[in-house]
């Protein structure tokens, strides 16, 4: 009987996996904070941050998006039962320009490093 339970236990021994996916390069917080509305131009922004991932035309104005995304996945597989969790957080920066391509507004969210490996029953970011 003991050997059967040992076999059962070994069959149910959990297989687990973790994976991390990053998209783009992390945003440089210092470079972002150095940008000055009314002073920095679109050329200054591109020189400091590189090419944006998106450019949006807003009438005669425009906005550039910089984004770094971090996804962390964890999985626990027990024969026919699987537990999976994926947590995605992103660094984002939107920079807004006027008609003369001068910086008017900057919006920044830096939370990519808050993504976590977890199981589905865990409460993250509470």
């Amino acid at each position, binding site marked *: *009987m003991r050997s*059967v*339970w040992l*076999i*059962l236990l070994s*069959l149910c021994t959990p297989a687990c996996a973790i994976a991390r996916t990053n998209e783009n390069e992390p945003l440089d917080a210092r470079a972002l904070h150095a940008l000055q509305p009314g002073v920095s131009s679109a050329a200054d922004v591109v020189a400091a941050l590189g090419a944006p991932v998106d450019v*949006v*035309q*807003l*009438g*005669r104005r425009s*906005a550039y*998006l910089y984004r770094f995304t971090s996804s962390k996945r964890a999985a626990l597989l027990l*024969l*026919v*039962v*699987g*537990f*999976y*969790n*994926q*947590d*995605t*957080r*992103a660094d*984002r*920066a*939107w920079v*807004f320009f006027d008609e003369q391509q001068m910086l*008017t*507004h*900057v*919006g*920044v*969210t830096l*939370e990519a490093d*808050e993504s976590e490996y*977890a199981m*589905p*029953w865990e409460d*993250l*970011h509470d």
Partner: protein
Amino acid sequence: MRPLLHSFAVALTSLLAAGCLQASWVRESRFAPVPRAALNGFEAGRTDLDDCLSALGAPLWVWEHAEGGEPGAALAYGWFDERNFGLRASVPVAERVSVSFDYGQIDQRMQGVVLFFDEGWRLRSWRTGLLRDLSREARRPPAFVEDAALEEGA
């Protein structure tokens, strides 16, 4: 002897079923929820873009939005946190062909808020709900239409 056989049968069945039957508990979370308290502090006509960016950070999406012939912009914030239980069965029915029934599809609905601004970056209004629906109804004619109208009026 019978319990022993029973245990063995359960173990064997589980082992053999692992390739085609899968029960799952899946959770996916994306981005942080927008703080409701920040939205409560907004006031249409008074709150401007700087106030909103300070309170909410960077949006997920920005697009041009005209309202009543007036040019403007819309900023969308969204988040997603879903837990799902599912059962997936996959049965081979012919060579190189299989049939899958997946009841564990994650609901991709993203909650969100869309802020609408006028040309001077004053907050006109905001709406909360499913971001997919909000963005669909908020999308307006492309930039060149409004731009042409502005030039005619000038």
